[in-house]
């Protein structure tokens, strides 16, 4: 494929690209795309992939302590799904020319981000409920919208991921419902988890549209189909009703139905906290990355062993083939 273009050619290509986007055509890996589009996608998909993988940690932290065998199996299956989502997403970035190894390196160096909510600790069993209900709930709102994203492999990955995420959200909500209908102590545990995870879950949608660095361009390229604030509103509207059903209280005194808007009004996010946690000052930032680095380093000898075994095997196969040829020639 030709890679060097004159300015005029480039403008023409970009115009044609935008026309395809405007016509709701999907962009596929071999299609020409602006460098910025590719970069923006890689950033977003990488962040999404790392979030799935780092998200295995807070939940994995409860697998060995799950309160019943049924809950343990469901949680194991869920965390396994998250890892699977990480795999599809890493594959999607590979179609854009960036390898999983490069992405992992960037994660370890602190260059690549993941959803900041995973820097909050999962301290009680109710937190597993809250993560499923709220964190997966927020993720679904975002991902449902991304099923229509303009990049084909990402959109198709989202369709599959959304199916599994809705099962995750239900299991989380079911944990919360069980606690909310349990003893006073269990209900308090559920409320405490909601209190701690509510605001961080709102932060998952990112800064307000006006302050979002990548939003406008992403919308134009239809990488994003709805803005941060639109998605956040949708999430608040659905969550308020879900909390009411199980009798838990969303920790926001400003939360109020607005008849005129047809939506709930809600309080302002503490953006200082958002920035503090993103910039490395959350409860678990250091442990999350350190955990990933340790598992990766501990596994280095295993990956080396596979490579050595495979190369011995192909050498032996090559030698056997050569031997076969020799004996044919002798005959």
């Amino acid at each position: 494929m030709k890679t060097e273009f004159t300015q005029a050619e480039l403008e023409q290509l970009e115009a044609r690209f935008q026309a395809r986007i405007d016509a709701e055509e999907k962009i596929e890996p071999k299609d020409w795309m602006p460098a910025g589009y590719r970069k923006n996608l890689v950033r977003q998909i990488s962040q999404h992939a790392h979030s799935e993988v780092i998200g295995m940690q807070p939940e994995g932290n409860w697998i060995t302590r799950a309160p019943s065998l049924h809950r343990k199996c469901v949680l194991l299956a869920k965390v396994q799904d998250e890892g699977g989502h990480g795999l599809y997403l890493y594959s999607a970035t590979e179609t854009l020319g960036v390898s999983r190894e490069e992405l992992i390196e960037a994660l370890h160096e602190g260059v690549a981000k993941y959803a900041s909510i995973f820097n909050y600790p999962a301290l009680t069993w109710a937190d597993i409920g809250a993560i499923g209900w709220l964190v997966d709930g927020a993720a679904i709102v975002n991902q449902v919208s991304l099923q229509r994203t303009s990049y084909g492999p990402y959109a198709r990955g989202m369709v599959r991921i959304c199916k599994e995420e809705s099962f995750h959200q239900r299991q989380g909500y079911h944990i919360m419902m069980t606690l909310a209908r349990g003893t006073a102590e269990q209900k308090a545990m559920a409320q405490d988890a909601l209190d701690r995870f509510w605001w961080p879950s709102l932060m998952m949608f990112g800064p307000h549209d006006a302050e979002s660095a990548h939003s406008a361009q992403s919308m134009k390229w239809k990488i994003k189909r709805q803005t941060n604030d639109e998605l956040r509103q949708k999430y608040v509207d659905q969550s308020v009703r879900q909390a009411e059903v199980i009798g838990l209280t969303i920790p926001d005194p400003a939360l109020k139905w607005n008849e005129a808007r047809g939506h709930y009004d809600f309080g302002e996010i503490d953006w200082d906290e958002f920035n503090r946690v993103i910039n490395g000052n959350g409860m678990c930032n250091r442990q999350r990355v350190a955990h990933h680095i340790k598992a990766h380093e501990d596994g280095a000898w295993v990956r080396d062993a596979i490579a050595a075994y495979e190369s011995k095997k192909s050498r032996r196969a090559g030698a056997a083939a050569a031997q076969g040829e020799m004996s044919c020639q002798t005959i």
Partner: protein
Amino acid sequence: MSDSKLKEATRQYAIRLGDDALVLGHRLSEWCSNGPFLEEDLALTNVALDFIGRARMFYSYAAELAADGSTEDTYAYTRDCREFSNLLIHELPRGDFAFSMARQYLVDVYNLAYMEALRTSADGTLAAIADKAVKESRYHLRRSHDWMLRLGDGTDESRQRLQRAVDELWGYTPELFASDALEQGLADAGIGVDAATLRAAWEQAVSATLAEATLQQPAGDWEVSGGRRGLHTESLGHMLSELQFMQRAYPGLQW
């Protein structure tokens, strides 16, 4: 054996097999987010799920036989060390990846043969559980056997680690083939498996794999046993305090 004695022996037997599966499943589940790469992380969790699922079937059957209101969770969450009757090899801490894979291979060869034998049990429920387990164990064994070759015939480091693991595990393998009066009685009744009959084939298969993986077969000059009598390594108590944390901190609640 009288019918009621046979029923109680079958219940005990189901608990033993449940304990084996739960304790090993727990060790495997500890690999979640700690695997050497993502695909392997998922595979290990998958195998963990199979074993925990197997434990649930055995425990549920024990609870059904007990008919005293107990459930699968009663067995998993409310018994202490001395009441756990798993074979010791399953409870050993997960160690490095070589240790976990060597253990997995040794018990997979055993489990496949054991479950194939249990499939013909005169007890329909045990036979049905075994039938499902055989399919899983075939897949587990294919995986762990591949890992034995890759690690054994990989790099010097991987061979050394795997050799060390096999050496450390070897003394726990004779217990796999021992049996007591309870198991002997059930074997005679056509319900249980006489594990001693599986030994020769197990040794043959394991020796062949060790050779193919360029490993030395350990001398077999030590052995430890006691799991079926509730005598365990100290690691089991720590595992249970984690596994049973919620029931211990909040006794009797539903989650």
